């Protein structure tokens, strides 16, 4: 116990986050094994994992790097379709878990490359202008994927932008992506366990980055770009690094998402999905990884819990969203909780040492 208390505050916080995820995983596993879990919730396990990864990765861009991105779903889309193509091509040649892993890695790589391509020009812009470029990127990806036909057949791997027939796949060919009809006949490889592993990997990467030298540099860039530049931090490099990692993780999440449903269409990854993920990040707290995890989980489950309200479901969701924003930003309430917390505050050794003066 003493040893844990001695650890740095950050490390302790991170351990709690990991612990929380592992505990949640074990509880769900246990409930699932004993049959105490609803189909509705079981069906949502993989999407929840995906949205957690999406939220945590977007938090890297929005919370930690401090740049608003409205096109995060675009990277998810690239990862999703890359993952589907990989999974279908590898059908029968490798075992399922390996196939899923390869699909996720490839999805991540392609999304990461896109992150580089978008990031280099976009990160020169700031604020809302960067936001609009990411939005535009997401829309372009959606539009292009909608006109893309991909298949594998006698002549190998083919791509076309005209129609499925022009792929000339021959009798036994498979159309993998069929323009606006999206990818169909996707093998359902995603499992809750794989989602759990992806979350752990994401947390490992993001939390380590946050507490590393690079992470501090990134946050310095966020807080004061000019000051950071003046002490020799390469702004572009660190911004790009955070942005690419964020895109890469979104790509992996996209692949996992696509491989959980038998069909996926480009339209799914539109502006609204990007916004949805942004809502997770903002509600969970900027830069607060644990908050993102919780917000992503709750807001994914919430619309399902509201099903009892039938037609008023989405209306209620909107009202809850607005109220939560109003309440969590209410000055008076904030002061009240502060006093409340001060009353119960337990003095920890790290707090006694005299704060942040020496590091």
């Amino acid at each position, binding site marked *: 116990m003493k040893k844990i208390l001695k650890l740095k505050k950050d490390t302790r916080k991170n351990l709690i986050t990991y612990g929380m995820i592992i505990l949640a995983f074990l509880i769900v596993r246990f409930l699932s094994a004993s049959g105490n879990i609803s189909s509705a919730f079981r069906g949502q396990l993989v999407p929840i994992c995906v949205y957690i990864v999406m939220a945590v990765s977007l938090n890297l861009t929005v919370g930690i790097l401090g740049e608003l991105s409205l096109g995060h779903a675009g990277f998810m889309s690239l990862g999703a379709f890359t993952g589907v193509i990989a999974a279908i091509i590898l059908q029968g040649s490798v075992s399922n878990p390996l196939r899923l892993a390869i699909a996720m890695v490839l999805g991540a790589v392609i999304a990461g490359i896109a992150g580089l391509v978008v990031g280099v020009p976009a990160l020169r812009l700031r604020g809302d202008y960067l936001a609009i470029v990411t939005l535009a990127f997401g829309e372009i990806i959606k539009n292009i994927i909608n006109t893309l036909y991909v298949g594998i057949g006698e002549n190998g791997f083919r791509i076309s932008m005209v129609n499925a027939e022009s792929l000339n796949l021959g009798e036994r060919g498979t159309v993998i992506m069929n323009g606006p*009809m999206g990818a169909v006949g996707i093998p359902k490889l995603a499992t809750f366990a794989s989602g759990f592993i992806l979350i752990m990997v994401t947390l490992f990467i993001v939390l380590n980055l946050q507490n590393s030298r690079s992470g501090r540099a990134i946050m310095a860039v966020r807080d004061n770009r000019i000051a950071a530049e003046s002490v020799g931090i390469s702004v572009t490099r660190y911004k790009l690094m955070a942005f690419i990692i964020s895109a890469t993780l979104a790509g992996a999440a996209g692949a996992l998402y696509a491989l959980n449903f038998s069909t996926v269409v480009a339209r799914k990854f539109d502006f609204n999905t990007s916004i949805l993920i942004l809502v997770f990040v903002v509600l969970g707290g900027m830069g607060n990884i644990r908050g993102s995890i919780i917000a992503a989980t709750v807001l994914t489950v919430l619309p399902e819990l509201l*099903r009892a309200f039938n037609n008023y*479901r989405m209306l209620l969701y909107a009202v809850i969203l607005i109220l939560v924003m109003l309440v969590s930003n209410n000055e008076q309430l904030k002061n009240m909780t502060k006093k409340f917390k001060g009353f119960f505050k337990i003095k920890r050794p790290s707090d006694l040492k005299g704060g942040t003066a020496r590091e």
Partner: protein
Amino acid sequence: MKKHRIFCIALTLVMSLAVLAGCGTSTQQSTAIKIGGIGPLTGGAATYGTSVANAAKLAVEEINALGGLQFELNFQDDEHDAEKSVNAYNTLKDWGMQVLCGTVTTTPGIAVSAEAYNDRIFTLTPSASSPKVVEGKDNIFQLCFTDPNQGIASAQYIADAVLGTKIAVIYNNADAYSTGIYEKFASEANDKNFAIVSVTTFTDDTATDFSVQLSEARNADADLVFLPIYYQPASLILTQADAMGYTPKFFGVDGMDGILTMENFNTDLAEGVMLLTPFAPDASDEKTVAFVQKYQERFGEIPNQFAADGYDVVYAIYEASKKAGIKGDMSAADICEKLIKVFTSSDFSVDGLTGENMTWSTSGEVSKAPKGMVIENGVYVGMQ
């Protein structure tokens, strides 16, 4: 960061409730057969789901009033999204669904039918029209035509009746339904007595201005414009063509149905529009008249083809259930096997609003004759 802590605790509580929510589902048995329905009730495609849900409700009420076999309907929203649709499906499963009437739209339909296939839940979709919905799944059936069938039938109709020689096509290339019909139509057109002279597209995001598409059709001297799309964008196309002074023949598919009953629509614009549809709300047969009247009384709107599909689905399940001797206390899997047998048997046919003598093949596709209609003086008239 700290301000979120209390909020987080509250959220965690909600989350725990979510996990436990399913635990309470009782195993109480009722004699009614539990029918689940899935379709978009909110969002951009809400009108389709709402029509199906309304009509299905109507049909269930009628059937229950007969006193014999009892149905219980639970219709869930999927926002026209595969993920939400699977969620809706799982919710229905927790509720104890025995037969699925859904889904209304195609992409969610493909995702849900894969689940229903694994779970052995009998599914009859009112309007998810891609062949991918039923392909390779013995317990999934369709009540509507498949998209390729509509493409073939349209090409056939146009060729047989020599409706036009130069055809322009405007379709929604972000929509599976529209693209599915177009692709088959285009490949059928090869050896027909007409030529496709212009093909243009739009997406849901650009479905406002059609001046470019219409100009291209006019510049290519098209005498017939084929619109394998839904009636909402079609109404815009008709309005804009009229404003441009462009007056070709317009030919639509079943998605075009609804254009005449669209509130406040100037039906003069649709004069002469031809379409293939299995349902016309102003048909004079007894069944349609009764249905339209009841629907209008109940929901204040004139039913469209989606409503007719929803109504027929419930009645098809009802007829088949009667024939198979299904009872509410049977398991979903048992019901599934029995219904498959009935639906694919040669002596099972249903007379519905959307077709006489509908029969089903083992692939799950329906066989019924599409009716060619032309709009004259604001009403459908059979085309021969």
